[in-house]
């Protein structure tokens, strides 16, 4: 049995910037325990030295000339924003007042 407690779910949700109700926390803790228990077998799969694969196809870095090309205009980039002002994205306060 893995160790996904309600407090851990609250912490993970907070890191993920998702508001969760107490009811959701209880449901998620139950579901995540079942899922984590079933995927924990990966820890037994690897014996000895094995390289990790982060990307399925080998790739080499490619350079290009540093040339300015057409891109989104400021107006277009802002056009779908929920709120904007003076050519910028407008958001709520970053810091608490206290």
């Amino acid at each position, binding site marked *: 049995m893995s160790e996904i407690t309600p407090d851990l779910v609250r912490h993970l949700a907070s890191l993920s910037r998702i508001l969760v109700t107490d009811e959701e926390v209880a449901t998620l803790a139950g579901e995540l325990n079942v899922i984590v228990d079933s*995927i924990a077998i*990966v820890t037994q*799969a690897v014996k000895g030295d094995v390289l990790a694969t982060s990307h*399925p*196809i080998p790739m080499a870095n490619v350079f290009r000339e540093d040339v300015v090309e057409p891109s989104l205009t400021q107006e277009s980039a802002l056009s779908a924003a929920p709120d904007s002002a003076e050519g910028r994205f407008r*958001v709520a306060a970053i810091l608490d007042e206290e």
Partner: protein
Amino acid sequence: MSDLIHKSASELADLIASKSISSEEVTSAFFDRSVELNPKTNSYLYLNRDTAIAAAKAADAALANGEKLSPLHGVPIAVKDNLTTTDAPTTSGSKILEGWVPQYDATVVARLRKAGLPILGKTNMDEFAMGSSTEYSAYGPSKNPWDLTRIPGGSGGGSSSAVSGHLAPIAIGSDTGGSIRFPAAVTGSVGAKPTYGAVSRYGLIALASSLDQIGPVSNTVLDSALLQDVISGHDKHDSTSLPQSLGSMADAVRSADVKGLRVGVVKQLDSDAFQPGVKACFDDTIAKLVAAGAEVVTVDCPSFEYAIAAYYLILPAEASSNLAKFDSVRFGLRVIPDGNPTIERVMAATREAGFGPEVKRRIILGTYALSSGYYDAYYGSAQKVRTLIQQDLAKAFSQVDVLLTPTAPTTAFKIGEKVNDPLAMYLNDIATIPANLAGIPGMSVPNGLAFEDGLPSGVQILAPAMQDAQMYRVGSIVEQMYLAEWGAPLIAKAPKLEVL
């Protein structure tokens, strides 16, 4: 007109190219049928007659000037809703993007337009492609044309439902763990996941960037091949896009020959985990190939046993990072809680309201997998399993040209049957996930109806990376063997939607 909607994309392309019929007539026929039947199938989230017909007229005008833009010139197409389109909202099946119209076209969409294919609309999908049934779409599930009480597979169930119900002759899907191939199998259609990097992901709303690949959905192998030829090729906007061409898939289909073919059956995917009727269809495919002269051997891929576990660590980890961009700042939903909230509270309230339960589950799971103390044990091991799977496949492909497996463990299940059991839902992808983890191409081709329920089954063909042509060659061989037996594609046996 009813004849028209049952034709394959390549047949329609020939009729349009010879000016026997216009792209406008073809596009209108599919569009009218889509408007009539979409309330039953929920294949499309968005349909726009004006843009589709304008593109068809432009295709006709080009042809009148002697310009044939591609082998699929004038053939209308449906596009999965996780590809950005400047003339249609793009939601990825989520409420957090409801009504968002992107500022740029995905490379695949731009290539379709350039190749003269009118876009009929955007197809339904599980939210951010997380699911195997479309039941996790924020806009309700799509229905399987074979039985409207059943799922059409997922996440690309809108595209498979549209193509198998003849609401579109061809469609675009995306495949992270089977989202093209599983829907194809359960709707009796064809779907292919190309080699990772063969098709640009620029403008695809990413689920798991190291696994995602865009590919074709169709009713024939040739149609998928023609569509892959149109959308593939290097794109400087995608740093993982392959620099080299993989050749013409359509040529591979046309030159298919069973002589000397060596086929591998994966020991770990030839088991009781598969529905007996699905297994019987698979055994029949293998028997037919042997009778036709192919050599069949059993290959051992022991690390496949860990594929689902590795996938459900890598995918949530990448998804939790990719979906961080839905933060209420630049586009999409913004929910402002009462009081004088900080931006962090606005983000949390927005993501609470905008994401569905499966998306929240996977983001939180991914955050867990990436947390300090668990990272090495879980995510690190999962990445090593990827290496082991690649090694198993390399060994298998040293003995055979392709691997064959059943695509899906079961036929289409009932809507509601698995929606509250995430683990049961994850197991649908047992045979398709290894291809994404290893980056190799895989396709599903119809191989009969399961004896228990009379619903379609599919056989999956896996080929080594970059050898998509080999996969299409074998796909065509399998298709031709069944055409000889049935006299028509499997899809011809599907019930007619309009009499319901």
